């Protein structure tokens, strides 16, 4: 029982219905459906959103709203979540590298990750390598996200990764780089562990890695 409401959650999520998704989730909890089941239905909705984004039926605005819905639902589900479930409890530190002030992509990744349950520390824009290193020391995240839009600032990513090595922290953290001027090969040259072509992929890569543990 409860399949109808779970289907509705997935459908409303896929259609970026803010109020309707939340009300369906509330209904599911009221009917006694487990929070883990609700999360699975939301994940199905998110899968459709990803497909529509890749098919260019959805745009960044829809990804931002998907993240907003997920954040809201996470708050509702938190008290009901089974600790042994698929819930993610990893930490991510993220920022736009020094010299670059663009943060839309980064902010969407943050929104999506927060919605998935990650604890995200946003260092903002124009972040120096030293500040990234300091944050990794303090927060001890499993993932470090470096973002850039300008080609001229991409080498800062390499400088940050070098600084992590010098501080003896490189082995403690998986580094994911994202931004339009990059590609897979460039990311490898910079010494990153992962490359994200866009905000959606970035969040998916981090999620998949987190679930491997």
């Amino acid at each position: 029982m409860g399949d109808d409401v779970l289907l509705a959650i997935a459908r409303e999520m896929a259609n970026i219905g803010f109020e309707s998704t939340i009300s369906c989730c509330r209904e599911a909890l009221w009917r006694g459906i487990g929070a883990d089941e609700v999360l699975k239905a939301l994940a199905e909705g998110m899968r459709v959103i990803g497909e529509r984004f890749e098919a260019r039926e959805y745009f960044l605005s829809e990804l931002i709203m998907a993240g907003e819905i997920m954040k809201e639902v996470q708050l509702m589900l938190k008290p009901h979540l089974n600790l042994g479930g698929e819930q993610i409890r990893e930490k991510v530190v993220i920022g736009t590298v020094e010299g670059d002030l663009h943060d839309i992509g980064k902010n969407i990744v943050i929104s999506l990750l927060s919605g998935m349950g990650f604890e995200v520390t946003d260092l903002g824009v124009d972040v120096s390598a030293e500040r990234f290193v300091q944050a990794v020391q303090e927060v001890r995240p499993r993932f470090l996200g470096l973002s850039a839009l300008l080609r001229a600032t991409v080498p800062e990513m390499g400088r940050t990764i070098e600084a992590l090595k010098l501080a003896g922290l490189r082995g403690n953290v998986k580094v994911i780089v994202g931004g339009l001027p990059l590609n897979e090969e460039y990311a490898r040259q910079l010494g990153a562990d992962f490359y994200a072509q866009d905000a959606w992929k970035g969040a998916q890569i981090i999620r998949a890695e987190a679930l491997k543990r």
Partner: protein
Amino acid sequence: MRNVEDLTELHRAWWKLENDRPLLNIAYREHFPWTWLQSDHARGLELVLKDGSLAEDGSLQPEMLAPEKMHSTPFTRGDLFLPVMPFGKIPWMEAICGVTPQVSVKGNSIWGGFGQGIWPEEWWKQGLEPEVDREWLNLLVETTKYCAERFSDHFVIAQTSIMRGPVDIMAALVGDRNVIVGMYRHAEETRRLLHRLADICIMVMKAQNEVIPSFRGGYVNCWGIWAPGTVTRNQEDGAAYVSPTLYRQFIQPVDRKIAQAFDYTTIHLHASHHIHMDAVTDIPELGAVEVNLEPPPYGPTLSEWIPILKRMIRKKPLILQAWYLTRRQIDMILRELPPQGLCLDTYVQEAGESYYIYKE
């Protein structure tokens, strides 16, 4: 050799999609901005005589001249005038709307806020109104006036080059994320704010126009295109992350409001805005569209652009700007697009970073 009148007539025809050849400025960037390769400059001497006619070849007598009518020929770059305008890197509009500009020396930029906004998260509940910062407004007007007083002997004067539009100002006030959340969840409050910001944009544009001297019975925009009436330019960078549906619902009406307030308006767009090109060119009162052709992955390839540009130029004059294009790419644009309404303003790739070359 052409004189200024030829040039203004070419520009007049361009706004009407009636020019028989494109407006071109193609320069070699290596020695920017001093070596312009474009040979067809409007260099002909143009001297306005006391009786309003233009001086012709032959002798010149003092009684033929009047102090108030003597001007040198304004500088040009290719088929475009070279305007002088207030420093464009200052985010004037955000500052005028209360967002303190942030300097980033390494980023070579001055930013109107850093993505998070300055208003509280629940701005929509509190009935907040943007307040005009008179100090910034006065500084912009005074700077425009200074440009006119100091440089109008040799240059045309234009509005500052980066006039950000309602969505960008809203993003600076409430944060990028809350622009989208506002559109989805607080549509009425978002619309009201965008319209208020459009009103402020119009007020600031008019304040600049009041101190810019008319040139040949018209004005010149920041790209150096003359028009026989008032001009302005605005941009909506923030529209790049908005779906086409949201653009039509929220942004197109305020872009139209601005277009209705002036005779010849132009919207500046980036390659990533290609999804909105049809909606933008649907604005009846809009004079022209300027597209920055950033290369992939920032936007489509040149071949992918061509059908989009063809659709656009049927409806509006187009200014195409690119950091670098190859000769072949320039040829492709000139071959594929009609001259009527086309203005190409770019650099040729003789040296520099091959990264910026389009892959066709």
